[in-house]
């Protein structure tokens, strides 16, 4: 009874999501699951008969600033949530990236559900944790067409398995989230950034390691080699005319000023230091978060590589080509390589393996390339088998985003 026509189902309620998935199961017709589609080009292309569009499943359902908690329907625009938080001087501390522009789309099109489904975190990941660390509770419809819940609205909770963790970063392949609850945190009063200029990658790593090993509570540690620093819209960064290493300090006024002075002193032997105050700091870290240096740059594929921080520069050197910059104290590498052949997959994967482990994701590449190459880090046999069994438990008929992460999953 296969229905011939490709349908786009746009449910407005939780029950309608359940109905839609149950229908897909009965038809054995896979669904492509999407919020507003801002990250559709991230992952392996999904072969799905129909689409499940969650952009109508919107609305903040609970926000209690004093309890540091917010719940919303999964399709709620991230921008709406951030605006509401801003009014109370709060934020999503994991600093979700807006990858829309990097992926060739519009800015500000992300949904909260999409951010969680991709576990996207920004520069503050090293201090505040990832999206998964702020994800407290959910309701979701499994690929069995059943609505279930996990977690709750409180931070301290060990009641049952933490399915939020499993769904966070599962790219919609396990269940369709309908309602999510996240922890929110106060916005820092002040944000300053210490810049160290003119460092090569290895010295920059030393600077970041020293800063992160200090008690100064550094909440961002990035390094832009000269070519990437030159692309910044922050004139202090561009104006340096050389490589820029950036260390972010956030908190109450007196604390930030004190730490900024202390950190500059502690790094002075490595290179010239400068500081960015609030406005420029915010602009700079947002550029970095959204991978601005590689936005536009058609013809370049973009890799996101996570390794032990001390291994960062070595990995870039081992790959030996392309443009790169570092976040997470050296542990996160954004690397752009020509989008031809395997987009450097061979070299990238070999360098990650030689660095003692980690993972590389082909975040941006033409569809054909993403269909032919592994987009996510290939897993060893044991982990691949376990992941497949986990998928079986949630989506035995493979109706949710089949193949988005790995073939068969």
């Amino acid at each position, binding site marked *: 009874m296969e229905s011939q026509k490709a349908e786009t189902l746009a449910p407005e309620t939780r029950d309608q999501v359940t109905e839609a998935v149950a229908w897909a199961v009965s038809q054995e017709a896979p669904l492509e699951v999407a919020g507003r589609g801002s990250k559709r080009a991230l992952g392996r292309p999904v072969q799905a008969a129909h689409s499940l569009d969650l952009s109508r499943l919107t609305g903040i359902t609970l926000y209690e600033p004093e309890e*540091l908690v917010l719940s919303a329907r999964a399709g709620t625009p991230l921008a709406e949530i951030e605006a509401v938080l801003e009014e109370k001087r709060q934020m999503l501390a994991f600093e979700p990236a807006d990858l829309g522009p990097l992926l060739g789309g519009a800015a500000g099109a992300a949904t909260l559900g999409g951010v969680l489904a991709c576990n996207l975190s920004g520069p503050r990941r090293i201090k505040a944790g990832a999206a998964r660390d702020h994800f407290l509770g959910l309701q979701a419809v499994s690929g069995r067409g059943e609505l279930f819940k996990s977690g709750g609205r409180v931070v301290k909770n060990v*009641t049952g398995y933490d*399915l939020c963790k499993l769904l966070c970063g599962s790219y919609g392949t396990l269940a369709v989230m309908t309602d999510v609850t996240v922890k929110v945190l106060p916005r820092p009063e002040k944000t300053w950034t210490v810049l160290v200029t003119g460092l090569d990658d290895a010295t920059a790593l030393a600077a970041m390691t020293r800063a992160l090993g200090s008690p100064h509570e550094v909440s961002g540690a990035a390094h832009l080699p000269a070519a990437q620093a030159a692309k910044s819209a922050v004139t202090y960064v561009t104006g340096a005319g050389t490589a820029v290493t950036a260390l972010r300090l956030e908190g109450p006024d*007196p*604390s930030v000023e004190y730490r900024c002075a202390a950190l500059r002193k502690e790094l002075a032997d490595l290179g010239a230091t400068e500081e960015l105050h609030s406005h420029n700091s915010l602009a700079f870290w947002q550029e970095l978060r959204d991978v601005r240096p590689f936005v536009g740059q058609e013809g370049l594929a973009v890799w996101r590589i*996570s390794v032990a921080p001390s291994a960062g520069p070595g990995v870039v050197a081992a790959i030996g080509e392309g443009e790169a910059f570092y976040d997470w104290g050296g542990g996160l590498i954004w690397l752009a390589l020509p989008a031809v052949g395997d987009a450097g997959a061979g070299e990238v994967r070999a360098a990650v393996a030689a660095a003692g*482990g980690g993972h590389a994701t082909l975040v941006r590449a033409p569809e054909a390339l993403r269909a032919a190459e592994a987009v996510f880090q290939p897993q060893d046999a044991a982990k691949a088998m376990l992941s497949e069994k986990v998928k*079986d438990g949630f989506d035995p008929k493979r109706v949710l985003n089949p193949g988005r992460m790995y073939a068969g999953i």
Partner: protein
Amino acid sequence: MQMPEPDQGVIDAKADIVTALRAIVPGEGVIVDAEELKAYETDGLTAYRQLPLIVVLPETTQQVSEVLKVCQARGVKVVPRGAGTSLSGGALPLADGIILGLGKFNRVLEIDFDNRCAVVQPGVTNLAITKAVEDQGFYYAPDPSSQIACTIGGNVAENSGGVHCLKYGLTTNNLLGLEMVLMDGTILRLGGKHLDAEGYDLLGIMTGSEGLLGVVTEVTVRLLKKPETARALLLGFPTNEQAGDAVAAIIAAGIIPGGMEMMDKPAIHAAEDFVHAGYPRDVEALLIVELDGPQAEVDYLIGEVSRICEENGAVTSRISENEEERMTFWAGRKAAFPAVGRISPDYYCMDGTIPRAQLPVVLRRMREFSEHYGLRVANVFHAGDGNLHPLILYDANKPGELEKAEDFGADILKLCVEVGGVLTGEHGVGVEKRDLMGAMFNETDLKQQQRVKCAFDPEALLNPGKVFPQLHRCAELGRMHISGGKLPFPDLPRF
């Protein structure tokens, strides 16, 4: 407490199983002597006791793998065990099961200051990690009160917290990697020194899985630099409501203290009688607020918190002027459990979490329960994150009192769920709260969790009888009832 029906076949085959295990773990690593087994008959939930069939103490991951393979082949149940401090009966033995003790996995394998992490074996105690790195000014943040004794493996299994987790997170937020062994003997490595998972977050689901998914054989934890300074305030309030309001106001002001603990009058008195920390006796509620970080920040925030608490009716307020004084402020709180142990033959520690604003309601109802059951209750409370630890005082030698204490506890936990909270904040479900899971989850929710269990341990041999009120067979859980066939919600617009 109903535990899974013991498998007589396994019990009868004990001698055979012992031989097979001795071939893997030689000498004293396999314990069968009844006297020696007794050391393992209970954990921190001492009301429940059961001698295990056999105890095995392997020393290598390979041995763990082979032990599990043998057990899987023979259908023998396995209960992993760290230090046995679980307060929910997570490590309670089974009559037909082996205890797999990780005590011999007690080495710190690597300390990597550049990557701010340490690789340790699961039997290393929580405190030993900090001890191993503190000379360089680093520490491991989650600090359960049991940290001298409890193991990092147990912390992973329970996703343990501590007084500092409001600011620094629970175990799950401070892990980078694991090595683990599945029930079929497969050895897996999850994560490493890098951040985030490459596929499904298996590290995330393992954390807090209470020994039901796999045996942890190595842990990579994140290390933090010790804050430059820490100072504490000790604040007394005439009512619980005012203390609760002060906590809310501190957070609303954008301040996340390193620790924020509350005690009610019975807990204050018990602690003061025990350690003489200088707590005021004439207040209804005591707050300990600790601020840590750069000196300049701490001095500034101490002033803010002090002002906010005064505005909310604090009648006593002291600020620690030195490290010794700060430790004294904490001494009473840290000794709260044993202090309560002194005023009652037995006590039962509960662990629900509530949305903070519900505190006055919950405390009021708890007093009503207390009268109803005729049992006293003292409260210590991780005030910042709403995690309650009511301590119910009872006497196990009085017939019926244990049952009454348990019923009282169950009422408290159901109340926590009713007001929007959860059954357990950090101690785990174990056997203790197993049969209350239905208060929070419906059958579909629980079945979905069990399907995760099926992916890891399809024969349900790892720590059965814990967490789930009813274990369904994986074949049954895998079945699907397919209905529908009509295109859904035909009235909605399509594209």
